[in-house]
């Protein structure tokens, strides 16, 4: 149940340096070209997706202001859109965002049990992120895969016909994946060993 005191939270602009790579900018120009001239705002949602993916999984004020600049629209227009759609995260999330479908068809096929199991397994409540910033657990509404209920998505990758065993496997796999650091993330000692 939703709590009734809404955090009327105001965010802070940190003026950190945000910019897309030239390749991404090119991709964005292509997206903009799909819409008639003067209608570049249409590209906002696709670009926010790209921004979220490239800048660490969530959108902050600086990112949104940067996108507003790219599209020549006001920042508030971006905030309005980013807060409307549930796929955009304004607050930081873990590396893997686990979104369990909790709507009717999944619920009658065990979706609620899956959610409870994940809460126990990850030691967090719905809406929280694990301490190691690896997993965020979210409940989402219908993912449009009711025939393979219960389902969840991890960073938009679908997992279907879930049961406890499958969850264990998925979490184990994600945990092990995250242990492999990219070369640039390694300390020189790690590199030598």
């Amino acid at each position, binding site marked *: 149940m939703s709590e009734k005191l*809404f955090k009327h939270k105001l965010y802070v602009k940190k003026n950190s340096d945000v910019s897309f790579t030239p390749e991404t900018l090119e991709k964005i120009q292509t997206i903009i070209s799909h819409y008639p001239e003067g209608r570049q705002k249409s590209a906002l949602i696709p670009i926010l997706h790209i921004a979220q993916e490239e800048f660490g999984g969530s959108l902050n004020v600086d990112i949104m202001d940067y996108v507003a600049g790219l599209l020549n629209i006001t920042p*508030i227009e971006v905030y*309005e859109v980013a807060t409307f*759609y549930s796929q955009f995260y304004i607050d930081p999330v873990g590396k893997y965002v686990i979104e369990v479908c909790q709507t009717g068809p999944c619920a009658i096929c065990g979706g609620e049990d899956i959610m409870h199991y994940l809460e126990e397994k990850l030691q967090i409540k719905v809406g929280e992120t694990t301490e190691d910033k690896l997993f965020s657990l979210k409940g989402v509404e219908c993912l449009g895969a009711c025939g393979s209920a219960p389902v969840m998505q991890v960073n938009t990758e679908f997992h279907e016909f879930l049961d406890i065993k499958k969850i264990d496997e998925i979490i184990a796999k994600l945990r092990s994946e995250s242990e492999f650091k990219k070369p640039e993330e390694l300390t020189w000692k790690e590199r030598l060993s």
Partner: protein
Amino acid sequence: MFKVTIDNKSIEVEPGTTILQAARMIGGDVVPPAMCYHSELKDSGGKCRTCMVKVAQGSVADPRPMPKLVASCRTEVMDGMVVQNITSPEVVDARKAVVEFLLLNHPLDCPVCDQAGECDLQNLSYEHGTNTSRFEEEKRTYEKIDIGNLIQFHPNRCILCYRCVYAANQLTDNRVHGILYRGEKSEISTFIHQAIENDFSGNMIDVCPVGALTDKTFRFKNRVWFLKPMDAHRECTKCSGKATLWYRGEEVYRVTGRKDKYGEVHDFICNECRFEKKNSSDWVIEGPRKIESYSVINQNHYKNVVIPSVINPIKETME
């Protein structure tokens, strides 16, 4: 010209006129109340659902009734259209429902609200509301946010009419606030820490139908019904300079745009006129402003207010 009949009263209007505008031309009880529509703000209306009416006959050409109630503020008349406002029990019922919905989460803090006495929602619930509430849940509340030194913002009171957003969009050159989030969690906000500051931001106060946006410089200074409104004008390079000054004794307590009987301002004023010109000497006084509205602002006229058979008791007694 199109002929339209509303609650058995007919009028001829230009094509393109909405039902609400036609009703206002007829005047009186046929006029549906409106919370989110503002005739000076493009695209406003259609959201609050208080102005819904029944179209009993679509037009001469297509006399079928419309299947659902329609928002009179955004539905254009057709020739031969027959509309029912308070003569339709369905409309009265739906309006009651809308008032109930609007009040679910609206705080009942009229005694400490600066808008009291000139609040559209107060008037609306006075006319169409009930004395008891069926809502047992906790009301939705928000933490306060500061939007600058001129405008006081009470998010709890907002009914999401979008008027201030349209006003900021259409009257100012840089809108910094908007509707954020979705559904029941929607809210008016600037999203980041910043003040709403531009030459015309004060008009957001005038277009707000409730006490969500009020004049910070007037906050808790006085009750509006103790003040005497005077129309006045001044030479202003930024705006029309046509305003209403609100006096108590010789002192100007606040300056607002001139609201008509539907609570609409047609000549928007700039922040300089509104917030900085609070001396009589700044203005040319035209004379007392007649408050035509049946709002509780005319509190001295409360008489026989509880007459169940009379739909609009205050108005009746005022006239």
